[in-house]
């Protein structure tokens, strides 16, 4: 076997050195009646050439997704990823190494994480950044648990325009701790502020909103923040961000007095990959540092005085604190941190701003185009970033089929995801910079003919 270098002769030689006559002697502690009597009932090994063939054929059973531009986002966005990033990520030094517990052999990973923390801190205007939780949904769960620990209160108000998967994950994460979860309804595509004012009381640990929200709407975060903190300055406002690219143009959460940011960073250099692996950051103020879950990298010096980096503030983590740890998280999505770091470095100050701007403009271009046709109606009168909801006057199944035939992944039929079940014929569109004007015109033609 090409991945197992030792020959049968070598194995025999080694058994002899160990002082046993057979391999069986080494595993005598495995109860005999539990030993497998026959070999595993799985297909016999195939050679590499056949393997390649087999998986290529399986891939062919998918659509040709490279050519299929998505009109759907909803927490996963196709952006262009420069080849320089993909090329660098393939370096085995980044790919095949372990978690950087040994700083002397891991400065590459450690410095990269530190750089990323620096970037995200600037983008969010938050002081500390946990670089990697698995994804936006699990990061939202962790943020909520953190809020329960910090406030010792038991009520969480959650916008029902938080991504439906995030809402479900949040519930799974916090359920064992029996908090009261109150769904905050929406009004005209944004959080219902009046309702929020009614719901706020002294028992509230956290208010969780997403902005841009699941419908793409840009929440009045500063106003919400003011309202929440006036009620009680200890209530934590958690802003979830599913489309992190929006940070290029939108106001930073820190500027709007958000307490914790749970940001899905897939848009920063991660492929769609049919849903993962993505990554998320948790950003907050330094005063909450002891309650943060997960790994963080800090700067220090080595014995020769060089500036170096190391995993730090580790007394929160599971391998040291066991059941008293702030979370069980161990392996995270560190390679995706480096992916984002490379991606953001390539974009730079101007690039990030421009891409964010193009996403905004392109989405509004398509919305105008569709509205003009008379086949679509606005559902909400709300400001949006790069996703928007429109009602279709005809049969959505027919246009979905037509879009597929023309190599577009259709927009999301919102009905099954709508928390208030009032949007029967509504579609959630997403537009990014990968959709050219020509392609958008084509989409409009298909949808409106």
């Amino acid at each position, binding site marked *: 076997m090409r*991945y*197992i270098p030792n020959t049968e002769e070598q194995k025999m030689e080694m058994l002899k050195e160990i*002082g*046993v006559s057979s391999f069986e002697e080494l595993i005598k502690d*495995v*109860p005999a009646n539990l*030993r497998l009597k026959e070999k595993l*009932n799985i297909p016999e*090994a*195939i050679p590499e050439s056949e393997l390649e063939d087999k*998986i*290529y054929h399986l891939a062919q*059973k998918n*659509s*040709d997704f490279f050519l*299929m531009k*998505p009109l*759907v986002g909803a927490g*996963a966005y196709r952006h262009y990823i420069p080849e*320089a990033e993909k090329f660098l990520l393939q370096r085995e030094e980044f*790919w095949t*190494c372990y*978690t*950087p517990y040994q700083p002397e052999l891991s400065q590459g*990973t450690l*410095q990269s994480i530190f750089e990323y923390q*620096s970037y995200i801190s*600037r983008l969010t205007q938050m002081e500390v*950044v946990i670089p990697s939780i698995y994804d936006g949904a699990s990061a939202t769960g962790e943020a909520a648990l953190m809020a329960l620990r910090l406030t010792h209160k038991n009520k969480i108000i959650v916008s029902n325009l938080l991504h439906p998967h995030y809402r479900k*994950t949040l519930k*799974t994460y916090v*359920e064992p701790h029996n908090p009261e979860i109150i769904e905050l309804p929406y009004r005209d595509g944004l959080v219902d502020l009046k309702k929020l004012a009614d719901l706020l009381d002294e028992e509230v640990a956290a208010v969780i909103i997403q902005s841009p929200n699941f419908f793409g709407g840009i929440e009045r975060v500063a106003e919400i923040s003011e309202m929440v903190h006036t009620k009680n300055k200890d209530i934590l406002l958690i802003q979830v961000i599913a489309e992190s690219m929006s940070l290029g*143009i939108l106001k*930073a959460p820190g500027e709007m007095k958000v307490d914790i940011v749970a940001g*899905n960073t897939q848009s920063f250099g991660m492929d*769609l*990959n*049919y849903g*993962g692996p993505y990554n998320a950051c948790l950003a907050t103020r*330094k005063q909450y*540092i002891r309650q943060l879950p997960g790994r963080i990298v800090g*700067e220090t010096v*080595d*014995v020769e005085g060089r*500036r170096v980096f190391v995993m*730090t503030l580790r007394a929160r983590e599971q391998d040291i604190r*066991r059941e008293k740890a702030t979370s069980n998280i*161990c*392996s*995270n999505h*560190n*390679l995706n941190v*480096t992916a984002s770091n490379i991606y*953001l470095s390539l*974009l*730079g*100050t101007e690039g990030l701003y421009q891409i964010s701007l193009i996403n905004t403009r392109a989405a509004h271009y398509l919305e105008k185009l569709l509205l003009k046709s008379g086949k679509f109606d606005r559902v909400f009168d709300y*400001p949006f970033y790069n996703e928007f909801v429109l009602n279709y006057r005809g049969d959505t199944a027919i246009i979905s089929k037509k879009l597929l035939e023309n190599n577009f*992944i259709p927009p999301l039929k919102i009905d099954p995801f709508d928390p208030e079940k009032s949007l029967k014929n509504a579609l959630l569109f997403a537009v990014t910079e990968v959709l050219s*004007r020509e392609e958008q015109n084509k989409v409009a033609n298909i949808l409106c003919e």
Partner: protein
Amino acid sequence: MKLILEKGISGRDGYSLPQDLFEEIKAEECLPEYAISKDKKKLSEVSEVDVIRHFTKLSKLNYGLDDGFYPLGSCTMKYNPKINEKLASLSNFVYAHPLAPEETVQGSLEIIYHLNQLLGEITGMDEYTMAPAAGAHGELTGVLIMRKYFVDRQEPRHKMLIPDSAHGTNPASAAMAGFQVVEVKSNERGTIDLKELAKLMDQDTVGLMLTNPNTVGLYDEGIEKIEKIIHSKGGLLYYDGANLNASLGIIRPGDAGFDIVHLNLHKTFSTPHGGGGPGAGVIGVKKGLIPYLPTPLVAWDSVKKRYYWKEVGEKSIGMVRSFWANFPVLVKTYAWILSMGPDGLYNASETSIINANYILAKLKEYYKPVYDRYCGHECTLTGKEYKKYGVKTLDIAKRLMDYGIHPPTIYFPHFEPYAEETIMIEPPESESKEVLDRFIEIMIKISEEAKTEPELLTTAPHLTPIRRVDEILAVKRAILTYDDELKLKDELKYREQDIDF
């Protein structure tokens, strides 16, 4: 080394923008004033060339598995086959949107469906969820399933038994699921003390989380009795798959009575660790627990002849993440199993067990093992003999770096009175006898150095890109971003050569 933020110059760019900027549309007309950031957020301003050089240089400060031996205990740092990387990055997989209609992703769904069957056969379980993103995420999923099972039966069980030798993630996961952790002591043979277990297991206890072979690398010979103790009191048995590399084709956790199994695909199943992920921590269960799995699961519609996502139902614990799985990790796992076949999998476990016992036999005279018996796929030695020379296990580990070898896992497991100054060595099947012989030779040399030149060890490493770091200072200063550093610029006074090494 200089940070990327310290490089470049204003106005330089590393990205080509689309030609059409949709300039006729004005952002101010699309976005309300309350939403727009006044200033552009400051990142680096570097060219593509700068980026390539910076990250290539950074990469060279890392030590990867392809650089050499990586004997980290309980981490299974085995070779990551290159063909699998290529197959996982086929464009029909990579560009697939998670909400693309099911009929467009039949290939991806078929892989998930078949992988479920393969993993089921390998471990003796009935159904897998591919959702968990990492081992600990799988553990959380698993213990939440246990919780839901008892809630459903209206049994208010609230305690979880966990051996003192378990990974820290086990108690942390149990605590996240709201359980009170009860530690089970190990006996003088390094395995579970059955008497103690029988005493602790009661009607208030959900069950036991166990790694087998355990974290010291020993098969628990009492596994059948353990199973009886837990099940006779109505509890569930959870298998931490961190050490499955000792079991392929030899023993299946399902046959041993485990109800829930988590597998680290990035350990046993050869997918790369990525400097701490992404991997995958899939969870397998026995039939009776399928209704509690996270939703949804891939199923086959025999009428329509296609794969689809099926909701699990109201007993499901819900979702543990957005979307479905760390899909490329599943492709690599699938490809690896197909390449290995049943004989290859058995060979992997057999070879890794022989490798570990070979190291144990050759080094036990120099580094006293915690237990004097054969081990599974990893062996646990100690460096306590060298304390009298002022040398700690940490020093031995650091000295190994000078010889071009990544240190083993140290100070884990750590439980008195048996395990102290531990060195846990795991030489997976992808390491040859020559590599092990060289490692053994170096370890013996270091044991001599410990006696004759202890300062060589206590000041090690000497030949790495950087040397020992001040971890206490890192905590004290808490410089966690470049802007933190800038605030302390006068105080820090780094010289150019201290940075650009």
